[in-house]
C-alpha cells in the first residue's frame, strides 16, 4: 500500500488548484468580456489572479513549514497568514482605485475561485493516505 506524505498532498493541491483557477479565469473573462466589455475581462483576470496567489500561499506556507520544527512551523503558517491578510487588503484597495475594472467581475471570479479551491483541498485531503505514525 502506497502512502502519501504532506509534501505530495500539497503539491497535488497546488497543481489541481491552479488548474481550477485558470479554468475559472478563462470562463470568467469570457463571460466578463461579453457582459461588460474590456473592464469585465480585466476584472475577471484580476480576481482570478488574486485568488490564485492568496489561496496558494496558505498551502505553500504549510509545505515549507512542515520541514521545520514545530515552533517554526507555526511561525511561518500564522505569520504568513497575517501578512497575507494585510497584502490582500492592500490589493483590494488598489484594485478599487482602478477605474477600468468591473467590480462584479472581480467578485464573480474571486469567490468561485476561493470556493472551488476549497473543494479541491477537501477532495485531495480526503483521498490522501497519510500514515498515522510518521
Amino acid at each position, binding site marked *: 500500500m502506497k502512502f502519501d506524505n504532506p509534501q505530495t498532498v500539497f503539491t497535488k493541491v497546488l497543481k489541481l488548484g491552479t488548474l481550477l483557477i485558470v479554468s475559472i479565469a478563462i470562463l470568467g473573462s469570457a463571460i466578463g468580456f461579453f457582459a461588460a466589455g474590456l473592464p469585465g475581462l480585466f476584472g475577471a483576470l484580476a480576481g482570478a489572479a488574486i485568488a490564485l496567489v492568496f489561496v496558494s500561499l*496558505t498551502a505553500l506556507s504549510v509545505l515549507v513549514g*512542515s520541514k521545520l520544527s514545530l515552533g517554526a512551523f*507555526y511561525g511561518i503558517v500564522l505569520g504568513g497568514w497575517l501578512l497575507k491578510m494585510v497584502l490582500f487588503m492592500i490589493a483590494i484597495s488598489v484594485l478599487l482605485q482602478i477605474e477600468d475594472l468591473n*467590480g*462584479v467581475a472581480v467578485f464573480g471570479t*474571486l469567490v468561485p475561485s476561493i470556493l472551488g479551491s*476549497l473543494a479541491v483541498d477537501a477532495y485531495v485531503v480526503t483521498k490522501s493516505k497519510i500514515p498515522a505514525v*510518521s
Partner: protein
Amino acid sequence: MDVINIAAGLTGNLAVIGYGLAAVGPGIGVGLVVSKTIESIARQPELAAKLQVTMWLGIAFTEALALIGLATPFIFA
C-alpha cells in the same frame, strides 16, 4: 446622552466596520483551529504530520470567509 444621540454624532466610513468584522470571525476561528492542533500534537506527537494537514484544511476554510468578507466592497460599494 442616549444611544440615538451618540449614533447621530458618528461620522466616517461604515465599510471600515465591515473590514473589522471580516477580520474578527476568521481570527477567532484560526486561533481555535491552531490551539486545538497544538493540544493534539502535545498529546500524540507521532500524529503531527496528519494533524498539520487537517489543520491546514481548517485554516483554508476559515480564511475563505475572511477573503470573501474583504472582497465585498466590489459589489456593495
